[in-house]
């Protein structure tokens, strides 16, 4: 049985104008020590998924259905106290912006020690020793001094190292990292990512890495989950997804990488933008932007189809594999081909 099992998760936000469905039918698993990447555009529900695992979605958000099973326990029905003893202890989290994540009026030491004391009966002195040890593990220079410093005295990269040290403080089973390098300098990004990978491997910690950087995903993770408009649309081994994406959206994402473009020509892009969660199109949410959309895509939400080791939620996957990519797909009432996307198609598949 997997360490973490998310089944048919449904998260909604009760807004004034009605309910907004942030996650629909999201399912995935994470084995002990496994590294899973969750990718998607902004607003796809990646962060909501991360916060939901820790049962930390803020009101008016709530879990409307599904379950999160961790080590045999169903997290979403746990009492607040029991959930609190899992957070930071067995599942910890790394946030996006290290400049905002540490409390500006408390010392680094205080913020580390309180975390240890929240989960273990431990003296301040012992807690400080553990904190120091963890700071050493993340290669912070003169860690003893850092414990008595305030966040504003440290650089962004240094702070993210400290946050990683805090996440590792209680030797968790899983770390959920929500875009841990987005707010950092490019040079620091690689350093931090390398450090995170190293520590996860060394301590056999499971990692859920949320990012929109496919390069990072391919370097760090073993499996990848692609999200679009609150749904998982493709999941499978990272290598297969990067090398042979099945879903048109994933293909588009990979084609959009700068290195995929012909030098001197425009970069590839997926036309249009992701729908807001209140205005998700009927059928497959990706259909307005999809070059392969057929009538069925406008009507029916695609179910997962197995394609090799991957699972893909796309009606057209078999057709695409069979090489029927160029037949007119959307037909009007008379059965004539009406593909409004010809001009873009050549660009995307160039």
């Amino acid at each position, binding site marked *: 049985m997997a360490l973490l099992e998310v089944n048919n998760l449904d998260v909604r936000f009760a807004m004034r104008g009605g309910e907004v469905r942030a996650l629909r039918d999201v399912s995935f698993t994470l084995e002990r020590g496994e590294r899973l990447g969750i990718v998607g555009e902004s607003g796809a529900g990646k962060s909501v998924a991360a916060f939901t695992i820790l049962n*930390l979605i803020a009101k008016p958000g709530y879990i409307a259905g599904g379950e999160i099973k961790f080590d045999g326990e169903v997290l979403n029905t746990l009492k607040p106290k029991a959930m609190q003893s899992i957070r*930071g*202890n067995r599942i910890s989290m790394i946030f996006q912006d290290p400049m905002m994540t540490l409390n500006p009026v*408390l010392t680094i030491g205080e913020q580390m020690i309180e975390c240890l004391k929240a989960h273990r009966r431990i003296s301040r002195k012992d807690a400080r020793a553990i904190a120091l040890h963890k700071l050493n593990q993340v290669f912070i220079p003169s860690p003893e001094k850092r414990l008595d410093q*305030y966040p504003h005295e440290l650089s962004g990269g240094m702070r993210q190292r400290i946050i990683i040290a805090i996440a590792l403080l209680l030797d968790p089973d899983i770390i959920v990292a929500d875009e841990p390098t987005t707010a950092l300098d490019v040079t620091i990004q690689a350093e931090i990512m390398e450090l995170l990978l190293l520590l996860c491997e060394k301590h056999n910690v499971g990692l859920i890495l949320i990012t929109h950087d496919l390069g990072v995903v391919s370097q760090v993770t073993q499996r990848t989950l692609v999200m679009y408009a609150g749904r998982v649309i493709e999941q499978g081994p990272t290598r297969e997804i990067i090398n042979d994406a099945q879903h048109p959206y994933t293909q588009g994402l990979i084609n959009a990488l700068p290195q995929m473009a012909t030098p001197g020509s425009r970069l590839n892009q997926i036309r249009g933008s992701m729908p807001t969660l209140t205005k998700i199109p009927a059928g497959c949410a990706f259909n307005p932007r999809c070059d392969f959309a057929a009538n069925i895509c406008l009507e029916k939400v695609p179910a997962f189809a197995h394609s090799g080791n991957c699972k893909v939620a796309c009606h057209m996957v078999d057709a695409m594999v069979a090489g029927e990519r160029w037949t007119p797909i959307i037909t009007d009432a008379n059965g004539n081909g009406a593909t409004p996307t010809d001009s873009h198609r050549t660009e995307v598949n160039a």
Partner: protein
Amino acid sequence: MIAFLIKRLMHAVLVMFVISIISFAIQDNLGDPLREMTGQAVSEAQREVMRDEMGLNDPFITQYLRFAGNALQGDLGNSYFYKQPATEVILKHLPATLELVMASSLIIILLSAPIGVFAAIRPRNWLSRLFMGTSIIGISVPVFLTAIVLIQLFAIGVTVDWFPSDTTWGSVLNGMLSTDGGMPSYGRGELVHVAGTWSSGFFTADGLWHLVLPAISLASIMLPLFIRLIRAEMMEVLQSDYIKFARAKGIGLKRIYFLHALKNTMLPVITVGGVQIGTMVAYTILTETVFQWPGMGLMFLEAITRSDIPLIVAYLMMVGVIFVITNTLVDLIYGLVNPTVKLAGKPA
């Protein structure tokens, strides 16, 4: 730290200088001090002689320089009415005002933090809505009106006969809305002499009892202001990433609210609050007048009606000193609470 205090001292001197010039400049428009000092029997010629003797006919600059020279030696002149040094008169009235401000500040500090925090944590709770609604009223109603209403309700008492008193429900309602009154609303009550000019009402039941209504009415404007300020700041802080991170670390809510959030909330509150406590000294003029509280505010108002210029100038300078002191204290406290601020001279 020392450098910071010296800098503040120089500020204080500058503030004193400006205040003294302004208050001196308006003295000509405050009326004729002789009218208050002398009776009908004194003739205009005699008054003119007295004016000459008091130096009131000298040019403004001469008068100011004379005043400033004396002031530097600690002599702010004699009050025309009390026939005593103005500083002494002020010092005699200062304790009453300070005690009133202290009592009000205590009410504000003890109530605003818990109420503000509660309203921020549970914004949809009916109690929070009630506090927020009442606080709007508190801010909008002027102090003197609050004071008069308090006196009517709790000192004089009201009898309500809006409902038929021959029915049970009517008399119960009437009884519920009526108040007995009987609370003291005049003066300071029984005092205990502490030291020098300081007689305190803090140490007797009667003295404390007399403090209740004036302190509440003085607090009535600042308390809602503080509640709203703390609530707004706290709500903003609770949205921040470091609070979410603290929750993700598995820290208990109590510690998150009262350490992580409150400490950050208090930073702007201390800044605004410190200035407001200075302002409260000024608000005492209204409260003290309504409650005949023998403090500086009441004294100042009387000094104005008597054109008692040395006393007016002394009062204004005293208030200036209080402002400078409170602001300095606020900056010191702020520097202690906020690690990102370094006071001049504090080692890094």
